[in-house]
């Protein structure tokens, strides 16, 4: 699928999505609403989970649309995404669980 004939509207659409998501993040960060900032879930507050999900949404739009990966061949897309999807959560799991372990052992 090619973007060449489509004009520029899709670029600005993604721009507005990124801007709105960032604004929501900043507002949540400044206000720190008690209901979601105080609720603990899976080792951190619900607010932090929301921040991470919103960040992944932004990352998805940048990689798939701006970097055009969503329009490349499926095989190429997964050649790049799979190593990241396997290695990064693995690394995070090891380091974060060891981090909290060493906190409780101090």
């Amino acid at each position, binding site marked *: 699928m090619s*973007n060449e004939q489509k004009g520029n509207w899709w*670029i600005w659409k993604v721009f507005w999505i990124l801007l709105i998501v960032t604004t929501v993040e900043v507002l949540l960060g*400044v206000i720190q609403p008690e209901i979601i900032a105080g609720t603990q879930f899976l080792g951190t507050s619900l607010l932090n989970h929301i921040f991470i999900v919103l960040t992944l949404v932004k990352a998805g739009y940048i990689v798939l649309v701006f970097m055009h990966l969503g329009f490349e061949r499926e095989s190429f897309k997964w050649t790049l995404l799979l*190593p990241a999807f396997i290695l990064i959560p693995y690394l995070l799991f090891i380091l974060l669980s060891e981090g909290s372990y060493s906190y409780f052992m101090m």
Partner: protein
Amino acid sequence: MEQTISKTNVWGGGERPYNVSYGKMMMWFFLLTDALTFSGFLAAYGFSRFKYQDIWPEAEVVFTHFPFMHGDHPLLFVALMTFILIMSSVTMVLAVNYGHKMEKKKVILWLSLTIVGGAMFLGSQAWEWGHFIHGTEQGRMLADGSMIHGANLMMNEYGHPLFADYFFFITGFHGFHVFSGVIILSIILINVIKGTYEKRGHYEMVEKVGLYWHFVDLVWVFVFTFFYLV
């Protein structure tokens, strides 16, 4: 040419099984490794943060300044920096898009604006670093009675020194990527002005540097979340 590829010889050489050029594919592989590098840094940050969770500083307390404004404005300046980088990503896509259409003048315009955005981001980061290094008027008293203001690699007014180390290292490493990006973009811009890609018949070089530039924006999205928001 998709229809000429037969299934038996597609990986035998002379074809592009992924339908991307060599240069673009290598740029992607480089970006994947770079993404893993940054993940390692941010995961290490997470480790230390979990380990010292009682004395880890809150970013909302540390970064509250905004140029020409008094009082506390948490997250405002870093939101502006994020906006600048997203904006320069948009101008980059526009430059790539006009490259596809072989419109040299518009490529020059949008590529130049991307460089301006990158330079503005670097300036903002220098300002942010300056404030973090100089710290606050009141400072913090150490156990031996001496006062410290601001942060460096050895001590940190706001909390654990590791926070300052990670901050300088990760935002510094990202900032160096931005700096390299500005240099590479400038070289590509000179080539565009000289008409190198016009003669070559395509603007794929702009596309490749565009991939790199979006990656820099992508990393910032994560740094922004894990340093300032979470």
